[in-house]
Structure formats: C-alpha cells, structure tokens
C-alpha cells in the first residue's frame, strides 16, 4: 500500500456540525435549507427519562418513549461529507447531546428573539463543554428586529462568540452560518495551538 493510499484512508471522510436551540426555533428548517437530501430522522429509545438513554433494554412499556433527531447531508468533496444534526429541543432529551456533539466541528445556536430565555441552556452547554459555537438569530417574518449587539448583551455572550442574523429558510444564509462556525472553529483551534506552542 503506497503512502498516498494510507494517508487518504486516515483522513476523515465525514464530519458534522450541530444545530441547537429551543423547540420550534427553526433547526429543521435550517437543516432542510442546505441539505442535499430531504432531512432524515433517526430515533433513540428512552426507557427512563430520569436516568438517560438505554435504547436497547427497551422492554416495551408505557415508559418507553422515543427521541427523534433530524439531520441533513452535504457532500463537500469526493472524499468529504458534512452532516448537520438538529438537537432534540426539549430539555429532558439533553443526554443525547453528548452523543451528537462528540467530534463535531462546532455548533450553531439558533435563537428566536421572542423566546431568548430558551437559548440560555444551550449556550451554557456548549460553553461548559468547550465546543466552539456561534449564535444565529432566526428572523421570522413579522418579528421585530433588534441589533445583534443588543441580543448578544441580553444573552450575556462572551465577546469573541460570533453572532449573526439569518432567515433559516434561505439556503445562502444558512450556508453562510455554516461557513461562519467553521471559520470560528478553525480560528479557535489555531489559537489554542499557538498558546500551546509558546
């Protein structure tokens, strides 16, 4: 096996970005706007919500519920596919987030200005895990528009976290958000390497 073949096999063939935010904030809309396939849905079985997921011990009882995760796919190159995973919105399903976020490039936290409080917990999650994230304010029709600086202040966002506004239905704007989080993750990684080198 020659060197190039070996190298190609070691290089990651797929990656992911997580789309988070409160229930009904437009996560699936954003995924659908850029995905090359109709968004797909995968499910995990939850047998005891207080103890987290164990999707196989699922003795069928009324206590068994499912948590659904929608995702989309973008083929970026012959050898690279990007998946977008929407997080389950409800707080009780947050144990799935660790699984979804492991190995992710970063996260986009979608925000609805009418329900800013729903964004606090997702923001706390990504901050505490050290996962790069940006905030994207989804501007629904008819919703008053506030300057993103005001929203950043209301969310108590750290200064270096990028915040943008977008229409989650618009492919180019959704793509712009993906570029933004990827650039930010790259900058964060380069910074950490510089710090370690010094």
């Amino acid at each position, binding site marked *: 096996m020659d060197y190039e073949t070996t190298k190609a096999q070691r290089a990651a063939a797929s990656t992911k970005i997580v789309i988070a935010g409160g229930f009904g904030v437009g996560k699936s809309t954003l995924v659908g706007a850029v995905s090359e396939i109709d968004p797909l849905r995968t*499910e995990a*079985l939850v047998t005891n919500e207080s103890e987290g997921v164990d999707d196989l011990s699922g003795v069928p009882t009324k206590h068994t519920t499912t948590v659904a995760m929608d995702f989309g796919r973008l083929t970026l190159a012959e050898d690279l596919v990007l*998946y977008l995973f929407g997080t389950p919105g409800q707080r009780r399903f947050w144990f799935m987030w660790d699984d979804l976020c492991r190995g992710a490039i970063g996260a986009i936290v979608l925000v609805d200005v009418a329900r800013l409080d729903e964004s606090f917990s997702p923001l706390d999650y990504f901050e505490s895990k050290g996962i790069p994230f940006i905030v994207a304010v989804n501007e629904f029709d008819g919703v008053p528009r506030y300057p993103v600086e005001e929203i950043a202040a209301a969310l108590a966002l750290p200064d270096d976290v990028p915040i943008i506004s977008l229409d989650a239905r618009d492919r180019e704007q959704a793509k712009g958000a993906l570029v933004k989080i990827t650039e930010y993750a790259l900058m964060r*990684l380069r910074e950490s390497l510089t710090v370690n080198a010094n």
Partner: protein
Amino acid sequence: MTPPVEPEDENYRPRLIRSYTITAGRTAATVELPMEATLRLQAGAEAPMLSPSAAQVLEVCDRRSVAEVSALTQMPIGVTRVLLGDLIEQGLIRIQATITEKSSADERLELIERTLRGLRNY
C-alpha cells in the same frame, strides 16, 4: 422461543419488538460508531447467513453514515450501532475515519480546513 412476528400483522410494532430481541440483549456496540461515521463494504468479503435485520443493515450501509443507516432501516440508533458493530467484527464492512477525542490537532486542523473549502464552494 416465539417465532418472529411478521410485518403483515396489523398489531406488529416493529421498533419495540426489534429493539428488545434482535440484538440478543446486548446494549453496546463493540466498536465506537459516531453518528456521522461512514460505512464501506469490504471488497471480496463473503457474507455468511445473517439475521434479516443485519442483512437489511448490510444492504443499505455502503457509503452511508451510521445515522443514515438508522433512518433508512427505521431502527433506533442504538440497535443500528450494535448490528453495524457485528458486521465490522465479521469483516463485512469497515468504518471510515472521523475526528474523535483521540485525533491529533493536525488531523482536526486538516479536516476543518477541508470542510471550509468545501462549504465555500458548495
């Protein structure tokens, strides 16, 4: 042991019954299988007798991710992982690289740069 329930049965509840039985009680996959990891058929591998569920997974998995296999077979993600883990152990499929906790900074950097290039041209 009761025979498998046929899908034609109106009372068939595929997800619950399958998840309880088809993995023989196992709850963890034998290999790490991130949601986004891509599966590939192993060239020249000879398929042994497989359970219908495992055969279904094998049928759809080539060049698809763990999450896609779960979605297309309508099996919960945990069940899908166990079945894929078995197929990997049997040498029928392999998993392509992804970024994990064990990846080096260089590997991360290379992946994010490739992603950025791809997104800009998307």
